């Protein structure tokens, strides 16, 4: 990820949060079956990735920043775990924002297929 303009601590949430379904990200991931994964990228700004995660998933800025940092430091992050159809929707939306994202079946999870 490109580090220009990293998000600052204590920032407020962005104003646009059209799709909010926080229950898709849960510690009980296996019950949903499919993970939405965001991958590291050398071009996307860190602050942009935070914005996108907030906008699509409705997470608070701190949570979105945490996920972005996981992408940045480890190369990937599971940003949501959900059923397959909704996962495909999120991946397509993430692609629309220019993020690299894939859908992956949770190993040992109760996938819907």
């Amino acid at each position, binding site marked *: *990820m*490109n*580090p*220009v*303009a*990293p*998000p*600052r601590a204590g*920032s*407020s949430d*962005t*104003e*646009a949060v059209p799709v909010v379904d926080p229950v898709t990200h849960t510690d009980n991931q296996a019950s949903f079956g499919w993970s939405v994964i965001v991958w590291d990228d*050398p*071009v*996307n*700004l*860190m*602050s*942009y990735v935070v*914005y996108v995660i907030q*906008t699509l998933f409705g997470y608070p*800025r701190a949570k979105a920043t945490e996920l972005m940092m996981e992408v*940045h430091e480890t190369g990937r992050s599971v940003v949501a775990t959900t059923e397959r159809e909704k996962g*495909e929707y999120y*991946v*397509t939306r993430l*692609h*629309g*924002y*220019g993020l*690299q*994202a*894939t*859908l*992956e079946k949770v190993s040992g999870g109760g996938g819907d297929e």
Partner: protein
Amino acid sequence: MTSLKLVSRDDETGACHWRLHVPPLEASILDQLPQRLEDLLRSPQENRRIIDRLFPRSYEDPEEERENRRLLGESLFDARKVMLGEVRAMLAAAKREGEALDLDLDGPHVDLWLRFLNDARLVVATDLGIEKNIGSSKVDWSHPRAPQYALLEYLGAVEALILDAMAHADGFDDRFECDLDDDDIDDDDDDIDDVDGIENDDSFDDEM
């Protein structure tokens, strides 16, 4: 100088209305970008690397990916074309002072412009073959592709300007205005580049 100004804010919802001022040279570049991106979309076979970056795979498994692409059909391309059409319409309707440009951005328009600027950066970066984190950088003007690097830097600076302003809008009063600092587009060509024409700026090294 490109600048962003907070025009108004709804006290109840916190929704902000911004004005992005773009000087003549940069405005002429922004005016051309939607058409250039549309041209790329019209010739996917000739621009395979860029198309693959704009439309990455959803599944690692080739069978899953093939089926997903079949179901999506042309919808991904169509969505990009719609976005570019909306950007083009905004540019056509924008206030012009001479050849400078004033873009009014509210919530949905901010989102649209962030996606557009980011797509443009992805296209330029892919065309330049950038494959690792470049950080904030200075353009090496002796490099044969310096104009593309400069464009990448400029678009990133505008994107960061908008994102930073949005993130801190709660703390602004209605007189807020922020310029792109000259240092954001540094044309110092004295330094040796680290990444094919780009020199990393140590001041951003703490991000990695």
